[in-house]
């Protein structure tokens, strides 16, 4: 994809899986261009692609009929109540007038705006405006939902409710969702997979679990209380200490995951320590993201 001579997205080969996928990347990474392309606004300078089986170069309008887009910025039809706005959005997407009105009521109820549906949208709070953007994206029953910064400007409670809603849509309503956000906890909370873009190139793609997993499969061992004796015994059994946080020790051994677990319990037995938990260690998504983008 090019803007004049500038290549915004280059050598990009990607298949979006079903479910909830997060789109990550620093500013200028090509996320916006990627969304524009999915919406059919930009034709690739070379190559091509399909969305829901439709060609992005020639079937932009048909694609947008099957996609719901929730923009980052506030947007609404001036002078309309929520019902009028959402039902109009449905009509624009191709719903018959009566069906659009019915769907508008349903969707507004689902998005938590049932009580305020007859109010002019211009009087809405920031949180309500976020919800109505989601409602207008959902009204025509899209197969794919593009959410651009869905928690933008929300207070903690509003953010929590919005994330629950997104999660509910992707897990219980059978919609595929692509969430574009700078807030990694939001992505972690809602998505199973992530796509990381950097400099217009696909940097990483896969399940969040895989992205966060660490090489060598270290273990996080939580003891009842800190114990130097335990660490000494563990070291004797070939477990190397990587990191300590309170009474939680990150240990890595040379053996298999099962052999390392056995060594942990052996060290605890020898040092008379009480093990509260043993789990496979993983990075935070932020750490994984920074590593991928070279931060």
């Amino acid at each position, binding site marked *: 994809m090019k803007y004049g001579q500038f290549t915004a997205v280059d050598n990009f080969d990607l298949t979006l899986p079903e479910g909830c996928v997060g789109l990550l990347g620093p500013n200028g990474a090509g996320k*916006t261009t990627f*969304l*524009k392309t999915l*919406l059919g*606004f*930009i034709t690739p300078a070379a190559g091509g692609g399909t969305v829901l089986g439709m060609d992005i170069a020639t079937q932009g*309008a*048909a694609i*947008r*009929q099957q*996609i719901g*887009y929730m*923009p*980052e*910025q*506030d*947007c*609404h*039809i*001036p*002078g309309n109540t929520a019902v009028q706005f959402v039902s*109009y*959005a449905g*009509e*624009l*997407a*191709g*719903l*018959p007038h009566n*069906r659009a009105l019915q*769907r508008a*009521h*349903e*969707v507004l*109820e*689902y998005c*938590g705006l*049932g009580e305020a549906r007859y109010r002019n949208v*211009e009087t809405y709070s920031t949180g309500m405006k976020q919800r109505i953007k989601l409602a*207008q*994206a*959902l009204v*025509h*029953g899209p197969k794919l939902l593009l959410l*651009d910064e869905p928690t933008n400007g929300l207070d903690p409670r509003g953010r929590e*409710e919005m994330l*629950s*809603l997104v999660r*509910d849509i992707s897990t*219980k*309503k*059978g*919609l595929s969702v692509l969430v574009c956000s700078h807030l990694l906890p939001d992505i972690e909370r809602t998505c199973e997979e992530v796509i990381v873009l950097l400099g217009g190139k696909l940097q990483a793609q896969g399940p969040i679990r895989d992205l966060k997993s660490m090489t060598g499969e270290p273990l996080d061992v939580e003891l009842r209380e800190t114990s130097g004796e335990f660490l000494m015994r563990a070291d004797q059994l070939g477990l190397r200490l990587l990191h300590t946080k309170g009474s939680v020790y990150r240990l890595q051994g040379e053996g298999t995951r099962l052999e390392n677990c056995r060594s942990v319990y052996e060290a605890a037995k020898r040092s008379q320590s009480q093990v509260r938990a043993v789990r496979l260690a993983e990075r935070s998504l932020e750490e994984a993201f920074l590593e991928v983008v070279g931060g």
Partner: protein
Amino acid sequence: MAETPLADLTYRGYDGELSSPHSRWMVIMLHTLRGVAKKKSYWVLTVISSLYYFLFMAIAYFVQNTLNTMEANGMPQGGRRGGGNDFISSFFDRVVWADQFLTGFSFGHLMLMAIVLLVGAGVIANDNRTNALLVYLSKPCRKIDYVFGKWMGVFIPICAAMLIPAIVFYMYGVMNYREHGFLADDPWLGPKLLIVISLAAAFQTSLIVGISSMFNQGRIAGAVYAGFYVLSGVFAGIAGIVQEGGDVPKSVMTMLDRVHYMSIYGGIEGLYKVILQTDGSGVPLADSDQTIFDRPPLVMLIGLVVIPALICMFVAWRRVRAVEVVS
């Protein structure tokens, strides 16, 4: 919220029929029309702008009744075919029917300007203010659908405000004043009216839509249009004042005739004169020494009406950019 059992039952996927992504402009047009129809001020202004027609119909009715009474009492009377000198008997002699539509427009043109502002000033400007393009263009709606839908949503109310009173007057004339030459004077008056009113409405629609697209506030777009309408009218009005002053060489008079049409109002007046093929005799009740400007040449009219309209539509087209939707 989604967690409550009641709410959870409300949302379902939609597998029903979706209309083809083509002709989305009709949805936009209908939505704009619904908004206009709800405005009481639109209807009030439409009635006020058509007062001349009703006034004329009342006077013509009075004159006709008086003539009928005179005939019944065996009093001498003139009338269109018989000739006559007094006001009543010569009233229909002095009436040029096509001119009444031009006068009707001139009489209510400020009200029509208010209708144009009411209907069109915010049509794109308000969408710019609320980022509504994000909604429109993320749906299966192309740029042409948006611009044309908005244009039609403004054109139809303006056209209706001009056309409905004219049609009522025309039908009234056909039914009552055929013997006074209503149809005989110009059998093509009806189709010509349709053409001139459509063109006048299209001209005003194109201007207001173009201006509206340049701003983020409807009231600012409206102020710009109104300012342009009034200032260009004042500029053109100077021509009339100079002409009325008299003692002007013929070449200057010709130039003043041209200047008179260099305004929004003048352009529409020129359309009426060219299409209805009249120079405008004014109100039959008024003194006959009023200034009458010659019909403008067709080429000049095209320059004054078509080019500004095209420029404004080009501006609107450029301002609506789908690629900017995701920013």
